[in-house]
């Protein structure tokens, strides 16, 4: 067996029933360190503490969870068998299925699951203080998010890489499976709309940001042609050229902003919405090699690079947390960023990073077809999710290091803040925080933006926080504006990649569904069918994007809860499938491993959904809001923050659509749950459990702990 030149990382501890004294000492030290850090966080009241404590507390908890809890799940619950051939080995075709080195696959899987989500949610949730968010991110990932990813990955691997929808149909039943399929599609549409809204809010009236993000399109096209025509397959060199061009584009944005071209790149939110919709359509019908694939490479490189940079930045700059540990909004539920009390809305707002149902789609897609050995689901499923959780912690830190006055001036809805520094300063004072108009103008000037007022969506806030952290280490205040736009570009790049890929995935799902009704539309190479379905998918998310960008009440404020509920409901479906399979296979005793997070996520989503539908509070309940505005409209009144009767109509329409949509989601998930419950009861009653749809056992021919192949020293030319 060839030996590795790679340093061993995360190698599983040899399976022994007793731990060696050295290992006991090591893990006791890790536990102690984590406990001390949590202690500092718990005891700090009123005084400002360093963000490093958050990092230590999180990392210590992750280490313990990975070493002990994920191992427990593997050994007692899932019982992976390394003598069993994985689909990658059995069905190897060099295309979809081939055994991949676990470290490479970890990178792959991480790049597929981590995007803008863990960067946005925690920033918004910082309105409740940094402590509730941190606790949920860490506890959520350990007991729910990483468990979901690992178990779904394992189940899909045992079923030759079947998708979540297929598994729901086969293990739960036809009704549950169909409901799951529709829910997945609907949830994806909302997700794309909200993510695109984040980009619109970050780029509106910002010529620098708009120019540098727009430049990613020609850069990606150039890379595409380079890779396809000039230097086929040289991905690494092409990506390095692409990253260099990208940095040039960010630097060039500064020049564009001060040139006569600035006007052409200063766009209103509505114009940006139509640009994005047009882009989304074109990107999804162009050949993959032209735009999507090169953009994906760029995005992966930037993702890994920037996240590593941020980790280094947080540790070296050791910024001080300026936000309250627990703010008053946590208990009152009257926060301006998102309405509603801590339970359930904190758990809805922070989805990615703690528990993200969307991961179940990735964990039941490409990754299970590439796993070399069954036991590696622990590293890839559980480990990658811990990494994403750490990204969320860093985003939370970036937001919590901002002056609270600035945070609220950036994240409260525009209707509340007005458009001038004076009005925003006044509104922030009304919320109980202070920022002078001068400070606000100064902060915008420091990052060379026209204004920072009401730049909701999380991206600008994160970018300001990151620019503070980075400029503290590299370049000082002179580079602050560069780092701000670097962060904006980095988030926009992720999101546009997700939008491209998501539209394409959505198109395939739609073609598949409509193909059942009318055959030709299901054909993947029939151009009119492709255009029609792409157009429908883009129109669907474009509708939510447009309604969010023009919503007088603040699109993020209105739509983000919808996005969070949708994502968490997907997690409920995934966990229901996991729990059902555990019970069907006679592991009732261990069903709590996925059953407990399932109960929790059902509790938060249904409570949140219920409040969104039935709450009398017009800030929380969509229908209460609708009634209030509809009544005022009948009386011919205009209620602030709406300014015109048209605004009033918009509010009425949006709150109706949002309310109906939440009701629909809850209904679909209730169908899945009901069907799963019936199957579980039947399984408990049946002696010996119910039959599964696992692929039969085939003995593996690959060695138990294979090392990666020797790097190709003499790669072919």
């Amino acid at each position: 067996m060839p030996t590795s030149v790679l340093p061993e990382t995360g190698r599983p501890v040899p399976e022994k029933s007793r731990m060696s004294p050295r290992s006991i000492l090591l893990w006791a030290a890790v536990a102690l360190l984590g406990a001390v850090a949590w202690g500092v966080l718990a005891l700090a009241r009123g005084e400002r503490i360093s963000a490093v404590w958050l990092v230590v507390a999180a990392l210590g908890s992750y280490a313990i969870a990975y070493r002990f809890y994920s191992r427990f799940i593997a050994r007692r619950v899932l019982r992976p068998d390394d003598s069993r051939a994985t689909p990658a080995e059995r069905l190897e075709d060099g295309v979809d299925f081939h055994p991949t080195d676990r470290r490479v696959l970890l990178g792959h899987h991480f790049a597929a699951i981590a995007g803008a989500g863990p960067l946005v949610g925690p920033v918004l949730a910082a309105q409740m203080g940094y402590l509730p968010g941190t606790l949920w991110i860490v506890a959520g990932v350990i007991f729910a998010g990483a468990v979901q990813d690992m178990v779904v990955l394992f189940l899909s691997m045992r079923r030759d890489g079947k998708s979540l929808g297929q598994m729901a149909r086969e293990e739960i039943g036809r009704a549950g499976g169909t409901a799951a399929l529709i829910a997945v599609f609907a949830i994806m549409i909302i997700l794309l709309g909200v993510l695109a809204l984040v980009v619109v809010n970050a780029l509106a009236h910002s010529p620098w940001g708009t120019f540098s993000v727009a430049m990613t399109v020609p850069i990606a096209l150039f890379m595409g042609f380079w890779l396809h025509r000039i230097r086929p397959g040289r991905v690494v060199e092409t990506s390095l050229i692409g990253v260099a061009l990208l940095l040039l584009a960010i630097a060039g944005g500064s020049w564009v902003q001060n040139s006569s071209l600035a006007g052409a790149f200063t766009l209103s939110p509505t114009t940006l919405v139509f640009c994005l919709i047009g882009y989304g359509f074109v990107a999804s019908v162009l050949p993959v090699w032209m735009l999507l694939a090169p953009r994906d490479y760029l995005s992966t490189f930037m993702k890994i690079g920037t996240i590593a940079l941020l980790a280094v930045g947080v540790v070296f700059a050791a910024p001080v947390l300026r936000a309250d540990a627990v703010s008053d909004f946590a208990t009152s539920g009257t926060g301006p960023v998102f309405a509603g009390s801590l339970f359930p809305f904190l758990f809805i707002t922070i989805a990615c990073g703690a528990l993200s149902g969307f991961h179940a789609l990735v964990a039941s897609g490409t990754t299970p077809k590439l796993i070399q050995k069954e036991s590696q689901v622990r590293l890839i499923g559980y480990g990658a999710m811990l990494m994403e959780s750490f990204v969320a912690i860093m985003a939370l830190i970036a937001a919590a290091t901002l002056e609270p006055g600035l945070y609220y001036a950036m994240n409260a809805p525009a209707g509340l803040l007005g458009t001038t520094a004076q009005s925003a300063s006044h509104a922030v004072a009304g919320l109980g925080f202070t920022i002078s108009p001068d400070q606000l103008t100064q902060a915008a000037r420091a990052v060379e933006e026209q204004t920072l007022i009401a730049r909701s969506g999380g991206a600008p806030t994160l970018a300001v926080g990151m620019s503070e952290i980075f400029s503290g280490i590299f370049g000082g205040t002179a580079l602050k504006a560069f780092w701000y736009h670097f962060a904006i570009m980095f988030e926009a790049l992720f999101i546009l990649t997700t939008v491209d890929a998501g539209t394409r995935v959505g198109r395939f799902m739609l073609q598949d569904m409509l193909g059942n009704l009318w055959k030709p539309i299901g054909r993947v190479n029939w151009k009119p069918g492709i255009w029609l379905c792409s157009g429908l998918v883009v129109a669907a998310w474009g509708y939510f994007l447009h309604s969010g960008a023009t919503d007088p009440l603040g699109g993020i404020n209105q739509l983000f809860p919808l996005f969070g509920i949708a994502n968490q409901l997907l997690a409920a479906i995934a966990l229901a499938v996991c729990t059902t399979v555990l019970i069907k296979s006679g592991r009732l005793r261990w069903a709590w491993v996925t059953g407990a997070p399932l109960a929790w996520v059902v509790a938060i989503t249904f409570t949140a959904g219920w409040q969104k539908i039935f709450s009398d509070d017009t800030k929380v309940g969509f229908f209460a809001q609708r009634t209030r505005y509809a009544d005022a409209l009948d009386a011919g009144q205009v209620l602030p923050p709406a300014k015109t009767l048209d605004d009033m109509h918009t509010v009425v329409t949006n709150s109706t659509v949002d309310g109906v949509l939440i009701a629909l989601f809850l209904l679909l998930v209730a169908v899945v749950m009901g069907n799963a419950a019936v199957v579980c009861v039947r399984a408990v009653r049946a002696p010996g459990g119910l039959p599964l749809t696992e692929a039969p056992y085939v003995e593996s021919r690959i060695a138990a702990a294979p090392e990666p192949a020797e790097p190709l020293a003499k790669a072919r030319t």
Partner: protein
Amino acid sequence: MRAAARWGRAVRWYLRELTGEAEYDRHCERHRRRHPGVPVPTRREYEVLRAVRREGRPEGRCC
């Protein structure tokens, strides 16, 4: 110095594997094993094949 070269090689190996650049080498190796005597596709031919394959398999990216 040798350690640096080792690390350099390791990073190159990792990036090539991660981006799928190494796929071609694997494909050629497989091809020679299964169809000895048949010439392997050139890199260009292989990339065209790969692009066609990708077209039909959209990979979801998460939030």
